[in-house]
């Protein structure tokens, strides 16, 4: 599990964008596209090199007050996102 005060940075090699035709957020990169599910899209929107993991969870809870177990979802997704290099942490 990551440290909750860590700050994820969005990898500028990717572009996050709402796609009407797909009805979801997508990540665009050279010659490719990844569709994000609803939760993943909301999390990635908050990855800006300023918000800590803690802060991202807090903001999401404000946005979705009924979000049960949102903490685990955020942590789980951020691990996957880091593996896929969509985001990175400063050493």
């Amino acid at each position, binding site marked *: 599990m990551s440290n909750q005060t860590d700050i994820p940075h969005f990898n500028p*090699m990717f572009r996050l964008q709402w796609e009407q*035709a797909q009805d979801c957020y997508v990540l665009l990169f050279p010659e490719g596209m990844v569709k994000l599910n609803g939760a993943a899209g909301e999390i990635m929107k908050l990855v800006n090199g300023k918000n800590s993991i803690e802060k991202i969870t807090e903001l999401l809870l404000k946005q979705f007050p009924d979000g049960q177990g949102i903490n685990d979802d955020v942590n789980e997704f951020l691990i996957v996102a880091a593996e896929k290099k969509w985001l990175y942490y400063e050493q």
Partner: protein
Amino acid sequence: MNSDNDKKLGPPLWLLAELTYDCPLHCPYCSNPTDLGDFSDELTTEQWCKVLTEARAMGAVQLGFSGGEPLLRKDLDQLVKHGRDLGFYTNLITSGIGLTEKRIAKLKQAGLDHIQISFQGADPEINDAIAGRGKAFEQKFKMAKSVKAQGYPMVLNFVLSKQNIDQIEAVMELSCQLKADYVELATAQYYGWAYTNRDHLLPSQEQLVEAERQVNQFRDRQQGKGPQFIFVTPDYYETRPKACMNGWASTFLTIAPDGSALPCHSAKMLPLKFPNVKDKSVNDIWLQDFSFNRFRGDSWMPQPCQSCDEKEKDFGGCRCQAFMMTGDMDKTDPVCSKSPDHHLITKAIAQALNPQGKIVQRVNQRKIVEADIARIKL
């Protein structure tokens, strides 16, 4: 739409804008048609903008500017800007010839997202011999450095053939040095000029096995750092065909320089009448045109595809390959070991061990036309 295709047809997610067939290089592996036309019927800026707008409205999201050499179009910046403003992810697929630091900056300003540069080898000698142009390597090397320095994601594309596949280790070293993000180590696909030159280009099985071993070894040493290498083997050595274009007219839409709309960049060779964006909207073309519906679904499939449990995976392979090799575009791709025409592939591999005749460098038609004009003036 064929009645058996119950899957909903999505938008053309990938729009490839082949801005011009004109090119400063003469690569014998070029997949452009060998009959390049006379360049006089290229789409205008306004026509291209209309195509981009219409495709984007349908949900197209990736936009590739390609050719030929797209940098030869003076309106490239304008088209990039239009594409980017519409929300496309914009890709420039270039030889690097015609780039300058200033132009890279200008394109960035216009909203270009990514630049892909092709290389023909890991050193000037081999690169420039294949490209048929002196100092090409030096130019590509400089521009690749500048592309990264200016903050773009960069893909390098090395087209591999008999002539350069043994350099693969050096190719990977060079990619690291240039800080590429993705590197396509792609053996030539045998269409257009490459089909003419196939016997000269197709690497042997031994060369391929060795190259793949070196790639895997290199990847192990990377430990997740540096470029991501994508090794593309020629389908001739496979036993099942490639899922060409992710299925006919399912994902990709190519617009040729003259405005012909094609389900792939080679499809013009097929005995089908393809629509033109000068006459029809992208929407009508994608959803209604006979040529686009022709190989959707599976009702068109012959045996052994029709009863094959892998038909959903490879869609019967490549229509152009079937046509080039058997003369019948409806046949199973001969790459498939179940195809009654598979012996044609075996024969091609054997033939490539002992190529006859000379390798042909791609000829730039415009130069011939200009030479003719000059002669008339004299």
